């Protein structure tokens, strides 16, 4: 621009080329030099910004450290000679993949988009579902070296302000080198140091995030992570799926009951089987005793060792199945199902009943609704049940169950009891617990979570017209 020198700084690859071209064109071609000369030098940057730059998002930066950080956070900086102000221009174009279908929380009915690694896209996915002026977002920068942008989103007049304040404080308290994924943050801001259970829900579904925001929860989005965090979370939610809200409520009731059954099987069945067959043989009906005893006749190991071995093999298969490239996946299936299952039974190393027990456990483990997180926690709990069942029989199972219940009842997610609405019992909120009431009946938000405005809808249930609809007169 004539004799005024300018400097544009950016990290190559993080900036949209088209936008940078626009910048240079307006700087080089559009600005009439005589107008610039009339502006005093210190105000030059502001003048250029106000009159000539075709950018929708700009900001003034005066601090040098902040300026450096913006550069590293994929912003473009314009400096004008003789002017003490830097201009931050948003021309971000970080490399990213497209919006795909959710991987962990796939559904049959309902929306099929999922979050991606870009925070801006993720907020857009939520905003596009929730056109509420009260939907607020607050930005934090977490990570001393990664400088990761973290956004806290909530609906201001629904969320409990105390919970939001707590979340704000917990996030700003985090001081680490880098936040690579939202799970880093999760472990810092959850209510307890050690627990097997997920106290904050991670989700890749924008529809889930939007629905949870409407229930008064908040959402934490971490740049670079396709999993957003939702809290406060209840234990029950891990046994629910996004699809529950899209299907017929009666069907959902059945499915949810099935999931509770699956939870029971996934945690208890191996332990229960070992306990009953080694301590309480009189509990089984006569024909079952014969079958179980007959099948075990050739097995060289005690039932406990047998169960533990197959469980370990199952865990190995699971782990291998995840890590292996998809091409090799089929091989794992064959080895797992045929060689280990079939051959072990035929060789008499393992009893068929045990294979069925572990098989049912494995299936149940993945039939928990949206609970991949829960499913991975249950792996350990199952082994605890197995050990206690093998040592103490049903007494041991009962002990572990009680201990687990005590632990669960003591957990809180951002102050909200984890077992709500069962403990503490809140009858009104049970409408969306074991079963889901139809939408017209789900009139209230969970009061432990939402702060204000608990009424969701005042719509009367659907009703046929009292008088018959007049038919068109024939001719």
């Amino acid at each position, binding site marked *: 621009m004539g004799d005024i020198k300018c400097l544009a700084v950016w990290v190559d690859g993080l900036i949209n080329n088209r936008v940078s071209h626009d910048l240079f064109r307006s700087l080089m071609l559009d600005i009439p030099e005589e107008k610039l000369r009339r502006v005093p030098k210190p105000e030059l940057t502001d003048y250029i910004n106000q009159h000539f730059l075709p950018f929708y998002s700009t900001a003034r930066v005066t601090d040098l450290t902040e300026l450096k950080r913006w550069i590293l956070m994929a912003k473009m900086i314009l400096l004008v000679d003789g002017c003490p102000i830097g201009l931050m221009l948003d021309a971000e174009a970080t490399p990213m993949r497209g919006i795909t279908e959710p991987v962990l929380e796939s559904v049959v009915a309902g929306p099929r988009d999922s979050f991606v690694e870009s925070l801006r896209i993720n907020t857009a996915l939520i905003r596009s579902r929730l056109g509420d002026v009260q939907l607020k977002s607050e930005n934090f920068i977490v990570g001393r070296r990664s400088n990761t942008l973290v956004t806290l989103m909530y609906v201001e007049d629904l969320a409990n302000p105390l919970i939001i304040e707590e979340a704000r404080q917990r996030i700003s308290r985090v001081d680490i080198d880098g936040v690579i994924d939202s799970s880093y943050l999760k472990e810092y801001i959850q209510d307890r140091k050690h627990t097997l259970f997920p106290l904050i829900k991670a989700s890749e579904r924008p529809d889930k995030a939007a629905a949870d925001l409407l229930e008064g929860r908040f959402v934490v989005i971490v740049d670079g992570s396709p999993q957003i965090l939702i809290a406060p979370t209840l234990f029950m939610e891990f046994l629910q799926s996004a699809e529950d809200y899209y299907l017929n409520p009666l069907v959902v009731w059945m499915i949810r009951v099935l999931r509770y059954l699956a939870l029971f099987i996934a945690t208890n069945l191996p332990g229960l089987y070992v306990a009953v*067959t*080694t*301590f309480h*043989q*009189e509990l*089984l009906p*006569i024909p079952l*005793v*014969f*079958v*179980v*005893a*007959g*099948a*075990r*006749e050739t*097995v060289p190991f*005690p*039932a406990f060792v047998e169960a533990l071995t197959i469980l370990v093999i199952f865990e190995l298969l699971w782990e291998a199945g995840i890590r292996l490239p998809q091409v090799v996946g089929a091989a794992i299936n064959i080895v797992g199902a045929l060689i280990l299952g079939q051959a072990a039974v035929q060789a008499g190393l393992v009893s068929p009943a045990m294979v069925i027990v572990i098989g049912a456990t494995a299936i149940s483990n993945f039939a928990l609704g949206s609970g991949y997180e829960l499913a991975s926690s249950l792996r350990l709990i199952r082994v605890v049940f197995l050990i*206690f069942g*093998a*040592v*103490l*029989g049903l*007494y*041991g199972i009962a*002990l572990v169950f009680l201990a687990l219940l005590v632990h669960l009842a003591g957990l809180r997610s951002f102050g909200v009891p984890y077992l709500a609405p069962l403990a503490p019992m809140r009858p009104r909120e049970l409408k969306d617990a074991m079963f889901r009431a139809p939408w017209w009946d789900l009139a209230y938000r969970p009061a432990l979570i939402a702060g204000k405005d608990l009424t969701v809808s005042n719509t009367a249930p659907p009703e046929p017209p009292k008088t018959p609809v007049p038919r068109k007169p024939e001719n």
Partner: protein
Amino acid sequence: MKKLQVLLLIGIMLLTGGCWDRTEISDLGLIVATGADLVKEDGEDKVWMTLQMANPVAMVPGGGGGGAGAPRAFWTVSGMGRSVRTASIAVAERIPKRLFWGQNRVFIVGEEAARRNIIPFLDRPLRGHSTRRNTYLVVARGTAKKVLEVEMPTFRASGLALNNILELEGGTEAIMPVTLNDFAYRLGSKVTAPVAPVVSVVPQTSLTVEDIKVPGGPSPTIDISGIAVFNPEGRLLDFLNKEETLGLMLVLNKSKEREITVACPVKGPQEPVIMHLVRSNSRTVVHMDEKGIPSIEVKIRTICDLWEHFGSHPGMTGIPYVQSLEKRVNTHIEKEIKMVVSRAQELNTDIFGFGEEVRRQHRDEWLQLGNHWSEIFPGLEVTVSAETSLRHRGLTIEAPGARKEHLL
């Protein structure tokens, strides 16, 4: 510190239960039925225990079942000893597995043992914590051993067959299941006499041609009918036949389903009408006269369906016939009960629990009567009032073809 406490707690918890009680299910000698007999050896009474054991390997597919020389699914072992326990130990010594009583479903007492006194034989099963209280108690005609050695073509184990008969068909016809618990409960009463069903070994009746060709005659099978009557002290007195058992079951409210054959109101006994009892409800009422002598009224209400009319004559549709049939059923029931009552009075054993009813309904008088019940019972006046209603007559109401003459 807290962590240490928790660890200590878990350690104590694991130690208090203890995995040394653990037994693999395949190490158990599964007993499905037990028989106890009294035998004399060297002039001394000995208990002869027969255990029917399951061999589960033979029962799973691929476990060696089927074919000649294959392991048998059930076998029996016996042992002798001074008591039930010592005799069982004698058995256990010869079995490579640990005897497991938790699945024992039937306890058979031989006739000889029952006649002497059944109480010593019941002590061990009732005392042990591993035996089921709901084990069925059965008295064998002859020895229990013989009953358990019968090989049934269907279940291959007579003990399991007995269990199935008592469980599935209990309450129908003359099959009255009695568990150890029921028996002990009645023994505990001062005057009520315990009863138990009777099992006997009989030759198979439905024979195929192949069965007849078998050398040694038709294979034996088991048959449950009748009731063994004990006195309150636990000694077997006599057996009731089928009709008497049916009467007893009606009074004790144990009849769930049975047939009652009455004569046709028109043609008489040559055309029997089979009534099917679907529900019966009995109540024992005690009346006291001025002199303080009790009399018993057994009130029975039943509901019957007409299941078969083995005849051909028409005109059985009217209400008078229905009423007449109901009346015949009433008479039949009354007769049946009177018969068993007089039989029990002959034996002087209160199997109906009439004494117990007197105690409940007239407690003050019972204080005097109770000590003399064995003198009162044989002369006790028992009246029966039966009230039957015929509910359904089936789909056809009349025998096929019966109405033809009306059509002409």
